[in-house]
Structure formats: C-alpha cells, structure tokens
C-alpha cells in the first residue's frame, strides 16, 4: 500500500475509533435513561425515581390477578422472581396480558407502595412456536414436576 493510502486508512480508522469511544462514553453516561423500565427489585430497593412517572417491567405473578368491584380496575403483582410489586390499572389490558406474561407498566408509586399504572404494555419474549409445541412442552414440564391436573373421573 502506498504511503498516502496508508495515511488515509489510519485517519479513517482513528475517526471511527474516536466516534466509537465518544458514543460509548455518551451511552454509559445516559445508561439510566436508556433503561426502558425498572425491575421490581430496583423499585423495592428505592432506585426508581420518586415524584414522577416511571416504568416497571416483570412477569405477572401467578394467581395474583384480581378484579376490583368497579369492574374496570385490575390489580396484579409484578415479579422478577425475587421481589414483587403490586400494580393497579384501570382500563383495557393488551391481548397478551395473562399470568406468567412479561409486562411493562407506566405509572407512579402511591403512599401505600402500590404502583398505580396509567398504561400497561405486554412484553413478548423471543420464543416462537406453534400451539401444539407449546402444549407438549407444557405437558412435559408438568409431568416432570409432577403437578398434572387431576383428571376428571367417572365414579
């Protein structure tokens, strides 16, 4: 390679490396703000902002979804399998909302430590499979842990 081209190559290399470092530093500085949501553990530890709305993300805990008497408000626990935060939401939930589903809710903690959400989004995971596969996986799992639903029997 002739010296001029070599020089150009080094210059461009230095430019891209410099921008890369700058971007890395900037993203590191903004790390907190780039997080789309906080986990229940972070919320319980008090890392989430107080006084203005933030998002909480986690799984809807099993057997925690309760309808309030007004028929519109739903209360459920969001968990990361360590800590749990109770969320209250008035409105229509997305189709994917169910127990065990990942969700992201936007809102604020009230005095009672309940997260009052103004928006609930379902978070889809990276697993794609046909219904039959999901069904057989579930059956295999249930068999493995030995808690199959008791079959109705005629007596």
């Amino acid at each position, binding site marked *: 390679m002739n010296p001029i081209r070599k020089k*150009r190559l080094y210059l*461009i290399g230095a430019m891209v490396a410099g*921008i890369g470092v700058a971007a890395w530093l900037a993203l590191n500085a903004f790390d907190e703000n780039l997080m*789309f949501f906080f986990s229940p553990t972070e919320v319980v530890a008090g890392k989430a902002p107080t006084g203005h709305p933030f998002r909480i993300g986690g799984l809807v805990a099993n057997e925690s979804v309760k309808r309030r008497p007004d028929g519109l408000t739903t209360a459920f626990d969001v968990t990361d399998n360590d800590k749990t935060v109770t969320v209250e939401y008035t409105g229509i939930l997305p189709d994917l909302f169910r127990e065990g589903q990942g969700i992201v809710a936007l809102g604020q903690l009230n005095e009672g430590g309940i997260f009052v959400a103004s928006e609930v*989004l379902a978070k*889809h995971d*990276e697993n794609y*499979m*046909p*219904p039959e596969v999901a069904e057989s996986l579930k059956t295999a799992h249930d068999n493995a842990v030995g808690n199959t639903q008791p079959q109705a029997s005629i007596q």
Partner: protein
Amino acid sequence: MNVFMRWFHKMGSPKYFYEVSGKMIPWFMWTFIITLVYGLYQGMIVSPPDYQQGESVRIMYIHVPAAWMSMFIYVVMAVSGLISLVWRIKMTEIFVISSATVGASFTFLALATGSLWGKPMWGTWWVWDARLTSELILLFLYLGIIALHSAIEDKRVAARAISILALVGVVNIPIIHYSVEWWNTLHQTSSVTMTGKKAMSTSMLIPLLVMSVSFKLYYGAVVLMRARAELLERDRNTRWVEEVVQEDTK
C-alpha cells in the same frame, strides 16, 4: 494477486462492470421472484400460527428480514465508503449512493411492520426504547446520506462526503444489534442467533431464512440497476458510454 482480488479490480473498470452487471441483474431478479413466492407461500400459508401471537406472527416474515437488510446494507455502504476514501475507486463511490435508497426503504419497512405488530401485541404503535430509537436513527442516517449527496453538485466530492457520513454512522449498527441486551427494552431479544440457541420452531425459521435470502437477492438486483444508471450519468461524456448508446440504438 488471488482470484477474488483480480475480479474486484476488473469490476472497478466502468465498462467491464457495466457489461457484467447487465448479465447479472436477470439472475438476481429471477432468483428473487422465486424465493419471494416460495417464502411468502411458506410464511403466509404453510407455517403454523404462534402459540401466543396467533396469526400476527406472520408479520415477522417481513419485519425481521427487512430489519436485517437495513443493517446489512448499511455495513455494505460503510465498507464501500472506506474503500472509496482510501483507494478512490469510482465504482465503490457509486455503490455507496446506490445502496442508500434501498437501505432507507428496508429500514422504513422494518419500522412500519414493527409498528403494525406492536399495536396488537404490545398494545402500542411506538415506544422510545433503545431498539426502536436506534433503528429510527438509522433511518435518519440513510435520509441524511441521500440529502447530503443531492446537496453537493460535484459527484466526486458528494461521494467523499457521504462516505464519511456512512462511516460516522456505522457505530450505530452494533448499538442497534446489542440494544436489546445492553438495556431493558420492550423489544424482545434476538430469536435467531449465531450461537444456535433454539428460540424459534423450525417450521417458522425456514420461511424466515428464505425471505431473508430473497430480500438480499432483491437488493443485489436493485443496487446493480441503480449503480448502472449512476455510472452512465457520471461517464456520459466518455467514449465507452458513447459506444454503449450506439450499440443500443442500432
């Protein structure tokens, strides 16, 4: 010099490139159409619905290949830009601008289909999470490159300017790719990875891969067409273009 480098050098000659690309375009076009029809048939009709998303999963067969293309084309542009800046090869300069519009289209397609999927699945058209925002920045980079190119009269100066912009923007590509791992995002993490983690059923993976090959062939055909047109315009006062035109009008 090995075979590949010799071929690369030959393709750097405008006249040779014009002849060879003319022969390559129909191949790209036909293989594109065949894989597109097969991929769409597999994706829209044969493949099963998802256990959670139902039929909406079919959007993925367009969305994911389009998103892959948006990043792939950008990398092609950045590499062509690097070669243009260091070696000042005219053909790679032409490739940078010829790729930009196709790349922008794929980026838009990825964003639009993602939005259509997001409404029923997430419950929102758009969120400002790291993945969606960085992909939107990619669209702006493409549009910036196109705008910068048309703002500069001198084609060689324009090519150098957009090559620099393409190289500056290339830092965004790893950010898009790793955004779902580095930060909490609403967007799910990758289902198809090099490490071979099995997050997608084979019956869905096959149409997805066919579609991604199809989109690459489409890009091949379109980038060559655009490069030929750009080349003729740039070289309009040269001898070889005059010969090509005379040949065509005979």
